């Protein structure tokens, strides 16, 4: 199970390793048994940005939070819903624009932080976020 874990906790490395090790074992146990970990999603960051011009960005944390905060698992649509129906960089022919914006979402499950993306902003795609 590949899990990207980032932490900024000011803890000793050994302690971090121990904590992460424990939470990883619990998560795996829960996965095997099909049980809830008792953790809930908190979206901490969601950004849609243009691939062509990285300075063009829109924060989508609020839109993503509406879908996913407070539940152990959610399926987050990553289309124009994240930018209030707006193409934030409508440059180029439509089919090339399909790859023109990417979405990066970060969320917490308890003390661990996970990251999804960059994925193309895509009205037909959803991300599965799960604790």
């Amino acid at each position: 199970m590949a899990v990207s874990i980032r932490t900024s906790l000011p803890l000793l490395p050994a302690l971090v390793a121990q904590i992460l090790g424990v939470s990883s074992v619990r998560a795996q146990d829960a996965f095997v048994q099909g049980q809830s970990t008792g953790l809930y999603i908190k979206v901490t960051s969601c950004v849609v940005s243009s691939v062509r011009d990285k300075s063009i960005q829109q924060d989508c944390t609020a839109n993503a939070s509406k879908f996913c905060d407070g539940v152990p698992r959610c399926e987050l649509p990553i289309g124009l819903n994240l930018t209030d129906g707006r193409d934030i960089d409508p440059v180029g022919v439509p089919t090339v624009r399909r790859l023109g914006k990417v979405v990066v979402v970060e969320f917490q499950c308890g003390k661990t932080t996970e990251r999804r993306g960059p994925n193309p902003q895509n009205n037909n795609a959803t991300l599965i976020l799960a604790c």
Partner: protein
Amino acid sequence: MKLRHVCLLVSIAALTMATAVASVASAAGASVTKEARRSELVNPVDYPRMTDKEIGHIRHIARLSRNPPGDWSGFDTIYLPLQGEKMFVIAFMAYTLELAQHELTPAYHDIYKSSIENLLKKMQHPDVWYSWMFESRHGSVETIKDEPMDWMTNPGWIDPILKDNIQLKAYIQQIAAAYQMLYGDTRYEQPGAFTFKWTGGMSNGQMNFRYTLTDITKNIYEEMVDSNFVGSACEPGRVFWICNAPSNAGFLIYDHLYGTHYGDAGPRMKAKWIKEGFRDPQTYMSVMFVSTSLRDPSTNVEPRTPMMDIAGSEEAGWAAVYNVGWDYDYSRAQYLVHREKELDEILTGRLFKVQGDQDASYALAGSFDTKTPEEIAGRMAVRSFQMGFFTTYAAEMGDRETKEKLLAYAERNFHPRWENGEYYYPRNDDYSIDERGNVHGVDVWAGSALLPIARLDRGGGLRDLYTNQWGDKQYKQPYISDVDTLAAGVSQAFYDERKDALVITLIPGPIKTKEVSFVVRQLEPGKSYTVIKDGQTIGQLSLKQHPASTIWQDDGTVKVLTSINAPHTFVLVGN
């Protein structure tokens, strides 16, 4: 006067009554005669009839379509690129079913409908589309005209429909559009009808990509427009004529379903390719694919192969069997120009001779090291499906002589197998040429899809599938269902609207049984039908009466029972 008038009236009345009685009697006689005459006018030999081998092909595909998810036995090939791109074999199995459904047994759906659904499910299996994640990044793409690739090789381009990959989505579009046309069943328009589940890995978590038939159709057409009709790309920046052919035919069917005008895509693409010199209407030669700008697919368009005949440019008919839907005359002229050479190459065994140390196929990836036996076999597997395509092309052109020569070659050399009522040419990777110049190797694509579709195509069958679309009228016609396909094969199932006659023939299947049944659906409740079995009238079927071997069921359908020690033909004629 009054009395005379009364007498006269009585006489007139009596005369009228007598005439009326006589008329009724005469009408009754005429009615019987008319029924008998109508029944006699329905001759089962006038309707399409599938042979046991053809039914065997359908059984084989139906059984493979029911393999559990991830079980690809019967689909595998020695040609490694094809092993990772099963959509082609799956698609042509689906076309075989659609052709037989539309052309041969239109009044019997079960085995075809369920099997097409199964094959479309397989199109969504990770084994079929996961390779896109790699092709979308590198694959065969090189930097084009100083355009860096980094902007489009981000780790998230996994969605197999989003952009390019026409080699997958065109097939799904064409099969699903034809399915909806055949059955009036809109399941592929429901949200998430096509769901591609990315199960994680690569540190990017799980994702779902959901599409409908309309989503995919519009996605492709938009790519056609954006490229100024150069075409939708297979891999980023590479547009193959072949790969666009399925959706160019599928657009015709979609237009019928929705009243759109996407069917102009094929003609406009052809005009573009001719104008740019990629297709030559004088010699009927073509390049196999072109490259384009990544940022603007209508620019920097360059041919990536020389002009080639149909063996080189489209594996001897791969695109043509779709193009007949909108470009029949060109397809036929192309066939006639190349026929003799193609046929000769196959029948003499030259097609399967290794050419030098390196042997190249432009389709489905590059060159082969002919010192490596597996690579030689892989190269020859390509030639096997080339033989299959040419046979299908000949069949579609109605060239019975050529088709029969090629099928006879297959019968002699490809070790055809009967197995539980299934008939097919089993995969054989030994492509060595025997002392008579014959080859016995055959790839699954040819053995389980292309040769079967060629056998089933009586001429113009695919063109008819794309252009003679069904609608409400056909959906309301009588048809049969609930046949035990191992106990019996449905050789005929045709409703003749003009004669109001349903013609059914069952032949014995691989499992011997005394009796089989089928269910007749959508008969008109208030109508009487004359039931004829093997040329003999066995009775009238109506709500008031029915022959002994028929049973009215609570849902208004009629169950028909018959022995099946030999073929039996039923005709139900509306009175």
